[in-house]
């Protein structure tokens, strides 16, 4: 009840730094970033040009941190940022930006546009211009522990089923384990197979692991909404648990933003380097594959393509692991043109999938056409990915376009074909 424009501007003044200054000064309005953004390519609407989504931030930079801008502001020549304007920009900054970072990859002058969107959201959040869906997800994560409002007893219940299904024990709160395993609510609710897969693989490899009853949720809506303070609250739970349990590694689930939150933003949020390593599940799996532990009993025959989740691959740096792993389990993996760091976003990242307004959903459906095209061009009926949020968005896209394409999670696929 205390969000205000002043707070928003104040936040922007805090986050504007040399890279942002350099980026804004370098932009020549060439419009190439639009060509890298699925919200522009699929709608053709110029307002979705990535750099345009940052116009209010640019003006705050100019007015606060350049001499000419300051002078212009003093003599009243500059257009100040208003609440109405930020309200108008909310759609551009949240609904139509998944922070996929593809624009940052193509800008000829080298502007890291997604870097700026992340910072801009700090100001949007505290000025109250955030979509309800993301706001409530953030609230639930901070107040209840996860974006879906899932509490530990419910998780424990799922774990019980996992143990029954697999006949394997899933340790909880065990000190000194090698890996602290994190989950995302979506996996707990929608894809419990993932937990079974993890249990199987750890047992197979003979590596000790544990879950933590006070830090099982890896996703971080604070990052999506753009509030570092709230993101810190959320990520601190994991850091505290990992340190309390004295684990060597923290295992990030497939979920893309979870990985971004704990691996790359985490240390910067809490303000110190971690004493433990943060490992993405695919990195662990690839390591096991190289050690020869990850042997398959058989392989999937269906021709399939891979959807590389933005936050794990392009933005997270897990570049090399996915392809060898899919080749380990699939006979007919077809590499597509825009793969790996060049892949197109599912359209639901960066919190977008939590926005359930009619316009946002229609826009996501439109943007999904690029994935549909990729699948059709490859001529396959199966797509594999490794991010719970991508999976939800893609399933929604399949439903919308009534596609019969099968969508598989990479970790589960590996577990399913794992040698007994």
């Amino acid at each position, binding site marked *: 009840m205390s969000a205000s424009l002043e707070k928003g501007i104040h936040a922007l003044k805090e986050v504007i730094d*040399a890279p942002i200054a350099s980026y804004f000064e*370098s932009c020549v309005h060439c419009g190439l970033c639009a060509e890298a953004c699925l919200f522009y390519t699929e709608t053709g609407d110029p307002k979705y040009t990535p750099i345009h989504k940052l116009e209010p931030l640019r003006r705050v930079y100019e007015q606060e941190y350049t001499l000419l801008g300051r002078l212009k502001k003093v003599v009243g020549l500059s257009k100040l940022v208003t609440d109405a304007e930020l309200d108008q920009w909310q759609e551009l900054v949240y609904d139509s930006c998944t922070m996929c970072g593809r624009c940052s990859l193509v800008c000829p002058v080298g502007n890291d546009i997604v870097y700026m969107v992340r910072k801009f959201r700090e100001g949007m959040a505290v000025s109250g211009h955030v979509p309800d869906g993301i706001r409530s997800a953030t609230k639930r994560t901070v107040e209840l522990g996860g974006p879906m409002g899932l509490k530990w007893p419910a998780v424990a219940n799922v774990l019980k089923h996992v143990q029954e299904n697999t006949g394997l024990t899933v340790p909880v709160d065990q000190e000194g384990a090698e890996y602290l395993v994190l989950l995302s609510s979506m996996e707990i609710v929608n894809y419990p197979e993932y937990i079974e897969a993890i249990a199987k693989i750890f047992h197979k490899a003979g590596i000790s692991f544990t879950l933590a009853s006070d830090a099982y949720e890896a996703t971080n809506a604070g990052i999506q909404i753009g509030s570092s303070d709230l993101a810190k609250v959320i990520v601190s739970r994991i850091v505290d648990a990992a340190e309390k349990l004295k684990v060597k590694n923290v295992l990030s689930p497939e979920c893309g933003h979870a990985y971004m939150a704990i691996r790359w933003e985490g240390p910067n949020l809490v303000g110190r380097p971690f004493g433990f390593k943060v490992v993405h599940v695919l990195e662990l799996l690839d390591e096991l594959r190289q050690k020869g532990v990850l042997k398959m009993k058989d392989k999937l025959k269906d021709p399939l393509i891979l959807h590389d989740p933005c936050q794990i691959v392009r933005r997270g740096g897990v570049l090399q692991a996915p392809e060898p792993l899919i080749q380990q389990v699939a006979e007919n993996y077809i590499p597509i043109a825009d793969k790996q760091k060049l892949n197109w976003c599912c359209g639901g990242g960066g919190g977008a999938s939590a926005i359930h307004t009619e316009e946002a959903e229609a826009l996501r459906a439109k943007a999904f056409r690029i994935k549909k095209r990729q699948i059709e061009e490859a001529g396959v009926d199966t797509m594999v990915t490794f991010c719970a949020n991508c999976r939800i968005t893609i399933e929604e896209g399949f439903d919308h376009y009534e596609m019969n394409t099968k969508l598989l999670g990479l970790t589960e696929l590996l577990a399913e074909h794992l040698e007994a």
Partner: protein
Amino acid sequence: MNELQFLTWTRGPGLDIAVGIFLLGVLWRLIEIYTLGRKKDLAAPRHTAGASGLHTVFRRSLPPPGMLKRSPVSYIGGYIFHIGLAIIVFLGAPHILLIKNLVGLSWPALPSQFIGLAAVVTMAAMVVMLADRINKPVKRFLSTFEDWFTWAVTFLPVLTGWMATQHLLLPYTQMLALHILSAEILLVVLPFSKLFHGFTLFGSRWYNGRVNGHKGVPV
């Protein structure tokens, strides 16, 4: 003021003022921009070959896969006019002489006919780029007064230089003076407009390459 006085002014006090404002602006702007500072990244880095600020400074000079096809005019037109400008500015005999007089460095020049040809090609590319900016919805949408203004400020020195050497429209003396004046306007405008990207693009590419290189992503 007669034309020789005008020419002498542009070669003397005019150049002095323009170079002065240019240097003043460049230093002020660079310091203003790059001393804003940034936070140290506390996350443990991931090392990947080819992922660094320096790599990106060079890599971004080439279009990323697929982009050339999506926006051929921007890339091809952009290459032609940037390379054309570089050839004219750095390989035209009178320009080399100017640089030699200002900083003492000199190197062989290209024949004047070749420079004339480069000027024509450069101007053609710039006109195509302007047409593209008018025609393409995204570019038109993004364009502000500054975009049109800086286009003109960049185009005029090429045009007047070419017209002077080809003896078009005005006597050589006047055209040469106009050419030098237009180049001086370019110098004055550069640090305070988007033309400053000629300096900051290296910083921008470096930051982008470094931030993502920290995560092991060669961008």
